[in-house]
């Protein structure tokens, strides 16, 4: 009886464990794929940098514009 309960508890705990850490496994997989993409395609690295710089430029212009109006 106790062994059955133990087995049942073990299965339930495994499910909770799996659900809890699923996001971590997915995150690691996506990060790995992203790193592989950057490694296989160095141009992507530059494109991403340019996108970030452009975004900073756009948002800072907008903020400065709003501040000037106020």
């Amino acid at each position, binding site marked *: 009886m106790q062994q059955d309960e*133990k087995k049942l508890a073990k299965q339930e*705990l495994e499910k*909770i464990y799996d659900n*809890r*850490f699923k996001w971590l496994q997915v995150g*690691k997989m996506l990060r790995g794929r992203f790193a592989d993409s950057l490694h296989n395609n160095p141009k992507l690295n530059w494109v991403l940098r340019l996108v970030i710089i452009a975004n900073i430029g756009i948002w800072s212009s907008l903020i400065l514009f709003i501040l000037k109006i106020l």
Partner: protein
Amino acid sequence: MTSKRYVLLIEDEKFQATLFSKIIENELLDFGYRVITLDNGRDALKFFSGEKVLKIEQSEIGLVLLDLAIHDISGLQILAKIEAKIPVAVLSANEDTKVKEEAMRLGASEYFVKGKSIEELNRLREFVVKVMG
């Protein structure tokens, strides 16, 4: 039964602490051992320096399960403080071999990657039973 009746789990994330306690307690059900938890690094350092932080003594601990990513103090610092005669299993989400090697150098008996797979969890269970059983 020996005097080493407790497994000490050092884990600051409440959900994970409860989950690992339940898993280990379920595994050690036949032996009657208990899991006791510390949720911060400062108390863990105090405990292993001999201060009375818990109701139990260091001599009653048969195994330490240590999370490396504690918010206030590095798990490696705590690991260095634990006496060599107490087996320590490191739990970490970090799969970096350098971190693993550093943990083993500081005296960890085993290194388990949290959330890696059910096989890894089974390896932890087997280790706990081997040490405490």
